[in-house]
């Protein structure tokens, strides 16, 4: 008489745990590619020197947001090397002298179909939405989703909606999608 095999849950558990490992540790490394900024930029050093984010990231007279400073803005102070750091040397040699805009990689670029007004959100601190990099010597790691092309910092729609709902602001489509 054949002895009936005893059923075991081990393969199931193995599969379950493998999926968790794959999903939480391996998958993020596969889906996101790590990219380097042209050179390191110390927000901390600049914040200490200039006192406020708006010294570089300001609103224009018409209310539009200047975003990343242009080469012309940076060269107002760094037309020549003034601190002697290796990163500043790269900036001066590769961009100032060659009159090239720095191809900064933007962490929180919104999709083209989203209209976002910075000035409408002026009452909130920058770090409400952006990573708190004002006190950091180094730039955050820049991870790009290989499928969508957006970074891991890109704000998702549900976050916008949640904040709007919390603050009793309309969540109608046309508010963000013009």
């Amino acid at each position, binding site marked *: 008489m054949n002895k009936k095999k005893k059923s075991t*849950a081990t393969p199931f558990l193995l*599969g379950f745990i493998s*999926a*968790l490992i794959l*999903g939480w540790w391996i*998958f993020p490394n596969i889906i996101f590619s790590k990219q380097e900024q042209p050179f390191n930029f110390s927000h901390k050093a600049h914040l200490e020197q200039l006192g406020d984010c708006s010294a570089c990231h300001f609103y224009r007279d018409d209310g539009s947001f200047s975003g990343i400073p242009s080469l012309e803005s940076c060269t107002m102070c760094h037309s020549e090397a003034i601190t002697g750091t290796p990163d500043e040397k790269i900036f001066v040699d590769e961009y100032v002298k060659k009159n090239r805009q720095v191809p900064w990689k933007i962490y929180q670029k919104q999709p083209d179909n989203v209209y976002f007004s910075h000035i409408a959100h002026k009452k909130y601190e920058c770090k409400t939405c952006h990573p708190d990099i004002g006190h950091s010597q180094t730039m955050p790691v820049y991870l790009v989703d290989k*499928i969508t*092309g957006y970074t891991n910092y890109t704000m998702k729609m549900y976050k916008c909606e949640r904040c709007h709902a919390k603050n009793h602001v309309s969540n109608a489509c046309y508010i963000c999608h013009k």
Partner: protein
Amino acid sequence: MAFDRRGFLKFAIGGAIGSLFTPIPWKLADDISIWTQNWPWIPRIPRGEMSQKRSILKLGATPYGIWVHLVNKRPITVSGDKNHPQSLGGIDPVGASCVPLLYSPMRINGPMKKDSNGKFKPISWNEAEKILSDKIKKLGNKKNKIAFISGDETSSANEVFSSFLSQLNSQLYFYEPSDRVKYFKGWYTILNGDGEVGFDLENADYVLALGCNFLDSWGSYVRNQKIFGTKGFDLQYVGPYKDNTSVVAQKTIFVSEKDLYKFALGVAYYLISWSPTLPGVYGIGDFIKALNKYFQPDKVAKDIGCSPQDIKEVAKGLLNAKSPLVLAGSNTPGGGPIKNIVSALILNILLNRVNKKGGIKCIPYPPKVISSSMEHKNILKNDLIVSLKKEDLKNTEIIFFYESNPIYSLPRDIRDELLKPDFKVSFSQFMDETAKECDLLVPAPYFLERMDDCFTPFGSSKANYSVCDKIVSPVVDSKNPCEFILKIAKKMKLNIPVNSFKSLIETKAEYLGETLDKLLNGNIWSDPTTTTPYALRIWSNEIKQMFSEPKETLSTTALELVPIKMAKTGTCRTGLLPFSLDVIYEDELPKHGVYVYINPKTALDFHLQHRDIVKITSKTGTIKGIVYISNEIKPRAIGILSGLGRKLDNEFNKNIGVNIIDLFETKKETGTNSYMWSPTLIEIG
């Protein structure tokens, strides 16, 4: 534990269930949905530093100031310039489409000459200069061998070109036919006025528009729309078709374009009867006699087919208003009857609205910097159509076309005359109908690619001067036509005392008490000073003949052709605009052919039904159209959308509609030294 089939299935099931507790399925589903929104062929919005620069839009419509918005110094879009008196913050469909047109496939890529097979061949700038100078040298100093047609009457470039022509012993310098030229003729030549007519619409509280679509496509319509939208005024519209101006009017009265002057004179009858005082102008007594004899309102109303009460109410409205203003115009630029314009100007005179707040203004002519150039006033006096009919151009061997496209916009007989000179030169940005007929193409930079100036566009309320600078590097190999002509003039040792177009503008700015830098920074020179017409006359033999045109006996099958003009169909220089295609509706433009709008009564008379295919025949041509029965057009008339039937090599214009100008017949206006081609009578069948 053996890893058998059952074990594998358990492992797979465990894996599948486990993956639900990881980001894998959710992230992949989200990513794939986002990926499908970002196909690689979808144009990306450029990112970078945003900036804005001032410019002046000149593409065939009345110029106005704009802000050009740039990202990384690349123009993206435009908006109206609130400080510019011709924009007041507004733009029109031409402005909305002006950035894509910078890259239009219609742009002429560089200098070209036509070879013996009629095909264009690229040449160098030196070669272009040599070809033209050799041709000019061959003419010697014989009179009127060269003619020039300018489509931009606001630019100082006219000084350079007319000076060049004067030195080559030619006075054949013309502006392209327009209502501006007709207004000058009506005001200066017929009524003995002074200066150019301006309209103080900002301060008007009651406007009577005689066939004049001034809120859509006539005069300074961008500014007019802004004034109407912000301040508003009472508006009465009299014309053959309910256009975009009439739809916002308190009342529309259907009157044929040929009878608009009669309506105005019917109104004049009441104004004179009810006014306690009459203006001190020459000929008032004879004018009153003529009104009493020929233009009693009841008689007029019967003649033109409107109600006598309509004439009375309009007269009452004009008299009761504090600042009434009367405008007249045509949907065919320069092609309408001058007597409509004269009658509108007479109404303004009778209402004592000359140089008054909210009335018509006598705007001084622009100053002249180059002494040998022709005065703006004298160019306005040079009527192209009259000169062609008088055969002034019969010995002309070279003709220049600057920013104008008369081979599309003028009737056939005029086009044929313009093509007679042996050598034709085009200073155009686009390969338009005129450029295609030319022998030498000297591409002008697009307005965003060059410095230009603008002195008092038609429809302004006061003299104004603005300047704009080059905003982008040229997309094609183009050259400012002024610089091109100055170089040739220098080589031929002609005396044009300016080194460059920039120095000409600098001198003009100084003359006006401004500096070029200030003007480039957005300062707009303006001067409310008006000229005083001392000897206005509202009656003369000329006016008498003009208003007493013998009554035509019309055939019972003849109908009036009404061109329907809308800014969204572009200008004669641009053609249909890229962004306009979405706003031209299905009831305005069918997939094939054109709609022929016809009043239900007329449709019944001619046994026509909606969507019947009909043949429209005039003395000059035949077209086919689709019947569209509409109450928006007066009886005994048909309306057809103008601005179509282009021979342009771009997808927005190819095989779209027909050019109704082919149906227009040029005829002399009785009693005037002036020609008209609208209204034209057609037969339908």
